[in-house]
């Protein structure tokens, strides 16, 4: 019997191309599937044989010399003779370069903002994944907002707004402390059908990079600001659910 996972997921697992959750799932499967176990061992043997045989062939000295001779020639532009008309052309080129630099700089800035946002989203998703490890989800387990809110008292230097939305399908399950990007955050845990939603609450700071919503590794996140707090909701549930939670939270 051939397990249907052997063709696809086994190789992704073997090559370290699976996320933590997928890998953990596959390892669980591995314990129960002797077929996959045998095939994984076979892949490991093949890899060991390939690397043991030292098949990698480095470029020979002759190629290095050839490249040294031929490449500078290819890179140097043909010599130009200057005339009055040419100097105008150089001026035009210089202006173009200045313009291109300016545009490039603008572009890089927007790119940088984008990658900062991506990095922050990755931290949030990591924190969410961390919380799903056994025993990590809640430090205070309660469906009562009047139990959860005082629990944060004295543990952090702000009082996060804690509300239960059980009537709207988001029952409060508890809370815990988390550290994201070196800053302490209150994490509120909500249930959404069979999914877990983490809402991280931190004091808004200038330069907070996360805004709007997005998706990373199959997890959705939605970020918003209210009354000096930045809220970031993250879950594997549909993004529409997170939008609904945001609206509930923003409503007075």
């Amino acid at each position, binding site marked *: 019997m051939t397990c249907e996972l052997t063709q*696809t997921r086994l190789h992704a697992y073997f090559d370290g191309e699976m996320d933590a959750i997928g890998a953990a799932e596959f390892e669980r499967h591995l314990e129960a599937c002797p077929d996959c176990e045998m095939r994984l061992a076979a892949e490991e043997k093949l890899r060991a044989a390939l690397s043991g045989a030292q098949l990698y*062939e480095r470029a020979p000295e002759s190629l290095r010399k050839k490249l040294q001779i031929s490449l500078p020639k290819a890179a140097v532009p043909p010599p130009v003779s200057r005339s009055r008309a040419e100097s105008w052309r150089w001026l035009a080129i210089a202006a173009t370069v200045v313009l291109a630099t300016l545009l490039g700089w603008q572009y890089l800035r927007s790119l940088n903002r984008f990658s900062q946002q991506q990095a922050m989203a990755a931290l949030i998703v990591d924190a969410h994944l961390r919380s799903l490890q056994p025993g990590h989800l809640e430090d205070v387990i309660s469906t009562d907002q009047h139990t959860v809110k005082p629990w944060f008292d004295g543990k952090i230097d702000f009082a996060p707004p804690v509300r239960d939305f059980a009537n709207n399908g988001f029952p409060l399950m508890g809370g815990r402390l988390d550290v994201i990007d070196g800053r302490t955050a209150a994490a509120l845990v909500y249930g959404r059908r069979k999914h877990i939603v983490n809402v991280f609450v931190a004091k808004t700071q200038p330069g907070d990079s996360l805004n709007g919503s997005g998706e990373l590794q199959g997890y959705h996140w939605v970020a918003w600001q209210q009354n000096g707090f930045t809220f970031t909701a993250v879950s594997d549930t549909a993004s529409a659910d997170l939008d609904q939670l945001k609206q509930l939270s923003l409503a007075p």
Partner: protein
Amino acid sequence: MPHRDAAYNLARWILRGRAQAEDVTQEAFLRAYRSFGGFQSGNARAWLLQIVRNCCFTWLQQNHVAEEMTEFDELTMPPKTENPESLAMASYDRERLQRALEDLPAHFREILVLRELEGCSYKEIAAITTRPIGTVMSALARARQQLRFLLTEPVPKGAGRDL
């Protein structure tokens, strides 16, 4: 010259020859230098290796290495179920592995060399071979299966390729 070894090694295995690999690597480097404007920041190794593999396949085509141009979908498959013998492979010397690797179709050679010798990620391989990641993944699975299959074939007398 950064990535010179990576470029040469890839060409050597796709083309199955050292002299050809030297020529084609040089050609690829020249092309890369001339078109450096086309390089958009990012992974320089992947960008260079993409040029190298394109040069290699052009070379194979021009030199009428016809069977090399088989596409993934047309590649013949080894028997679907692998026998315990092929799964529990013994140890093989370099020569045997080299011959098996060279007997694979070019697209399988390419993908195995990128993954096993060059250590590229799926994403990099997808960029270099301009194929979707899903195709890379399934091709890699098939390439490994076929390599194992070739390693359990009896060695034909007088086999071995002259380089």
